[in-house]
């Protein structure tokens, strides 16, 4: 229900009246205005084909989903102009429904090549477009607001509620920055703390299954490895992907090698924070010592201690990368 917005904006600029398009789970109003349009789906159902609270309410006849078009008016009217207008909304919404249905089919894995071809025809070539999957934002009582925020953060080509998550195809020149903005907007406007997975660039709708899979994997890896931060960029998650793809045998041998009994014994929250900060500060001793507020020598002493207990010297690249890998794989089991 996204390209609708453009149609809405254009119509409003001609009619000079507020319009809202409402479906069961979504609504777009324009302009997002003062005497806020706050009629809900059930209310509209009861008052269709009348003028209700300053809006004339129409339903569309030929769409799969039920849509109500609400046009600000003093009294109900049924002119040819209105009929024409409803027709253009209808064709637009039918197309949107059609696209959504196919996209759902495709991401559910239950599709044929011909479905992809149909979507390709509908979307054409995508430029600078990305697939995002948003978790923990599909809260029932503010889903309209969430959509509104998404629509205003990027140029959205599609917003789709699917399986407790929200799938977005957005066009943006700096997608990671915008994804961070989105997460911050959802948090500051609606107090929703979500995770946004950016699956990768979508040049062609045929890549959808693959990139959707990337998003799911990114969210999975976040849970599995307790990755901090609200935005996950699958293309930058090679370290976690490598960690995940190792055989169980290799994983446990790495962990045994690095996490010796002595190291496990010495690992308290101070040591944990030290290791995490050292990585965060790119192994820079001065920065790490500053952030931890310990003397450089104290930091060195802790790093020496790790070396003594594990045989891995975090100041040496060769040692550090394997230690980091072990840390990624084993940290959670080790600490919790």
């Amino acid at each position: 229900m996204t390209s609708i917005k453009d149609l809405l904006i254009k119509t409003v600029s001609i009619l000079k009246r507020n319009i809202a398009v409402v479906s069961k789970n979504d609504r777009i109003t324009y302009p997002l205005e003062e005497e806020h349009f706050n009629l809900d789906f059930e209310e509209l159902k009861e008052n269709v084909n009348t003028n209700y609270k300053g809006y004339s309410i129409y339903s569309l006849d030929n769409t799969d989903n039920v849509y109500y078009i609400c046009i600000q008016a003093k009294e109900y009217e049924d002119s040819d102009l209105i009929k024409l207008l409803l027709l253009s909304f209808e064709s637009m919404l039918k197309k949107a429904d059609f696209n959504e249905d196919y996209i759902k089919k495709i991401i559910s894995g239950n599709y044929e090549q011909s479905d992809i071809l149909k979507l390709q025809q509908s979307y054409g070539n995508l430029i600078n477009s990305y697939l995002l999957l948003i978790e923990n934002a599909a809260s029932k009582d503010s889903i309209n607001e969430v959509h509104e925020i998404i629509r205003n953060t990027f140029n959205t080509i599609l917003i789709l509620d699917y399986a407790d998550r929200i799938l977005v195809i957005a066009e943006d020149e700096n997608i990671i920055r915008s994804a961070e903005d989105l997460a911050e907007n959802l948090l500051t406007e609606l107090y929703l703390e979500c995770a946004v997975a950016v699956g990768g660039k979508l040049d062609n709708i045929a890549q959808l299954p693959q990139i959707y899979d990337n998003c799911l994997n990114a969210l999975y890896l976040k849970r599995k490895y307790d990755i901090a931060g609200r935005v996950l960029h699958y293309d930058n998650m090679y370290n976690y992907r490598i960690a995940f793809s190792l055989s169980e045998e290799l994983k446990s041998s790495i962990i045994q090698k690095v996490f010796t009994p002595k190291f496990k014994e010495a690992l308290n929250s101070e040591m944990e924070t030290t290791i995490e900060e050292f990585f965060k500060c790119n192994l820079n001793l001065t920065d790490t010592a500053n952030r931890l507020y310990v003397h450089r020598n104290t930091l060195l002493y802790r790093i020496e201690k790790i070396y003594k207990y594990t045989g891995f010297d975090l100041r040496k690249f060769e040692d550090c990368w394997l230690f980091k890998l072990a840390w990624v794989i084993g940290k959670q089991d080790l600490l919790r």
Partner: protein
Amino acid sequence: MANLSLRGIKKVYPGNVTAVRDFNMEIADKEFIVLVGPSGCGKTTTLRMIAGLEDITDGELFIGDKLVNDVPPKDRDIAMVFQNYALYPHMSVYENMAFGLKLKKVPKAEIDERVKNAAKILEIEHLLSRKPKALSGGQRQRVALGRAIVREPKVFLMDEPLSNLDAKLRVQMRTEISKLHQRLQTTFVYVTHDQTEAMTMGTRIVIMKDGDIQQIDSPQNAYENPANLFVAGFIGSPQMNILKGTVVENGGKPAVKLTDGTMINVTAKKEATLKSNGYVGKEVYVGIRPENFVDVDTESLGSEFSTATGKVEVAELMGSETYLYLTICDKQVVARVDSHNKKRAGDSVTLQFKWDKVHLFDVATENAIV
């Protein structure tokens, strides 16, 4: 506008990580509170509990008179500001500020009033019709602050909001946020790991370490009367110099003798404490801030101010002042002297201690002896 009351607040994360142990504090309406401390000390956790983003394991949190432990974030009347200063790219500055209120279905006239009022406070009235692209970095941040202001929250919560900015903008925004607090007359809780930020912004600061509060005080008081060795070192830059000494009787009065034999008098109040608490004959830590050293060649205090001599290892020219690094009693110390001081690396320097400004700390508990 509201006061906050944190009573015995505790946070234990899954896996038995105690992030905040027993946080007690009464925050008055309109205060600017800064939580400060090293990474991992529990600042973010505390702020997130106030926001309602994190469950409180134990204790009670009141905003105003209302117990909010089980109140969801959206009903707590708080506004949060983070590092990104996100704006909606296609909306004007006005629309950016109005948007959150529109979502909350605030009447238009009221939105208009609030947006214009916020714009006035932030001095961005002339930017209201601009799009974010046409704004400078500092202007963007102000608009993002405006988005929080129009909510008219009881409390503003900010977690390291300046950490992504470059050094120049950071200093500028520091002043900006302080000014904002003065104009809004609302309670602020602000988190930073940077003690300079804490010192310059807070009306009171909470110094934390390992999930425990170390001291709650005005910046000046925390600087002048640190409660313990940790606070003494953490607050102030360059850091307070810490030497070891022994409490001895000097002409019937307790004084502190440094390892090089230098004898330092203490204030009458400290004399009494040292005596009554049995410190005579025991070791103590002696803390002295860099500005409480005086180079005898440029300025001489009275003869009751004892001296220690060392060789300058590094002279750091800071413009209006110079930092002299030298070793006294086998410890590196730094003295902050006037920039007219011509001492340079290799020169010998004799420093007088402003003994009335000397701090003493118990060696075992590390608490201040006052």
